[in-house]
């Protein structure tokens, strides 16, 4: 049921309400704090749980990733491609680690699935590009927006 609102005689005489409305807008115009964020200079702080651009965490310049293939398995967009290899100390490591960022849906499941805390999603949200690029391993290893 819609509530029937019966405006009083003063309300139906629009002018008083109009003047009050004009006063409200004037107050906003003059005194109210402006909410605009001047973007390139000021930036909004996102929550640490924000899922932005990917990176692979490194410890002592060595990536945490052991090429266990859990992230490409869990990825719903199938955008992660890993080629596994062996290091001299018999450690498994990714020779190739590519993320097709155009297909990525930023669900963050790779981050959840990773047992070694290697692939992570940072707070970086400015990812516009002029070319359709695939994130390579070198790119991902740069510790951009490291969350620690």
């Amino acid at each position: 049921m819609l509530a029937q609102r019966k405006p009083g005689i003063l309300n139906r005489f629009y002018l008083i309400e109009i003047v009050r409305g004009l006063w409200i807008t004037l107050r906003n115009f003059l005194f109210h704090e402006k909410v605009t964020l001047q973007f390139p200079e000021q930036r909004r702080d996102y929550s640490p749980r924000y899922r932005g651009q990917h990176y692979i965490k490194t410890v002592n310049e060595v990536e945490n990733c052991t090429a266990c293939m859990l992230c490409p398995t869990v990825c719903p967009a199938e955008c992660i491609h890993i080629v596994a290899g062996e290091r001299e100390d018999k450690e498994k490591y990714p020779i190739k680690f590519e993320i097709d960022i155009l297909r990525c849906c930023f669900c963050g499941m790779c981050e959840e699935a990773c047992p070694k805390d290697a692939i992570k999603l940072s707070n970086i949200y400015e990812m516009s590009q002029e070319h359709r690029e695939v994130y390579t391993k070198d790119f991902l290893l740069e510790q951009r927006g490291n969350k620690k």
Partner: protein
Amino acid sequence: MTPEISFMLIKVAIVLTGLLAVVPIMLFVERRGSALIQNRLGPNRMGPFGMFQAACDVLKFIFKEDSTPTHVNKFYYTIAPWLVVIPAFMTFAVIPFAGSLSMDGNHFNFQVANLDVGVLYCFAIASLGVYGIIMAGWASNNKYSLLGSLRSSAQMISYELTLGLSIVGLMMIFQSVRLGDIAAAQGETLFTVAGLNVPKWGIFIQPVGFLLFLISVFAETNRLPFDLPEGESELIAGYHLEYGSMKFALFMMGEFINMSVASALIATLFFGGWQLLPGLAWVVQQVANITQVDVLLVTVLFQGVSFVIKVAFFMWFFVWVRWTLPRFRFDQLMNLGWKVLFPLGLVNLFVTGILIYKGVL
């Protein structure tokens, strides 16, 4: 060239440049004003306070591709924007922007054309502006545009009556339709309260008339809350839906110039026109004393300044109201026009007549 002709050309130049300057200024005021009212900042990157944003807008309009849709009536589609702009410019001709000045045996009248019919000329030419809108909507061959122009024509007809009726009271009191006479007559003192002279401004002797005029002028200029012809939420953009680049800019120019003419009319009819604002008479004396310029010349200058200030206030009022009030529904618009404003105008006329007969006014 005789002094009269050269003075005439100067007046025309002043009015034309003034009106053309209104457009970028209002673009800036509209954008920043709306932003500040909505607690945003608005365009503030180009130049100080974003003042050159208007120049960028204009450049964009000029260099944009001027495409004509294939389904339109080419001839009417092309001339429609001009039919909005040209009457808007023409209307300003009879509005005096300063008092008259007698110097060296020459009489200078700061009004482009002192026509016998005065304010009626304004209304006549302003009523032509609706054809641009109707033509644009019809030639666009688009149902939304057509609806917009239909609404526009109905709205114009309805509110023109109230517009005319609201100032008949003023004509009766001042016994003239010439805007120059009306503005000059408003310099008299109506009554004195505690040593302060209240001038015989239209708003003090015709408050209801002022209200009616204000409301109908909003409807005539197609500004919110009466912008039904373009109502973007229901008609996308109404009559200028199919227009782009400079042709669209012409519609916008027409709207802003109509606004300035409307503001000038409000100022002239109800706020003393070029009469000095309270307190400015003292400033005039001081300036004349300091600079040793003829006091008449300084007075005319400050009369122009007063007029511009009054007009600017109402221009701002247009913007202010636009970002405060929501749009009327069409039936509400018609009800307001025919069932409230029109009878009120008649009653106002009747009461004014009685008061004049009794010798009160």
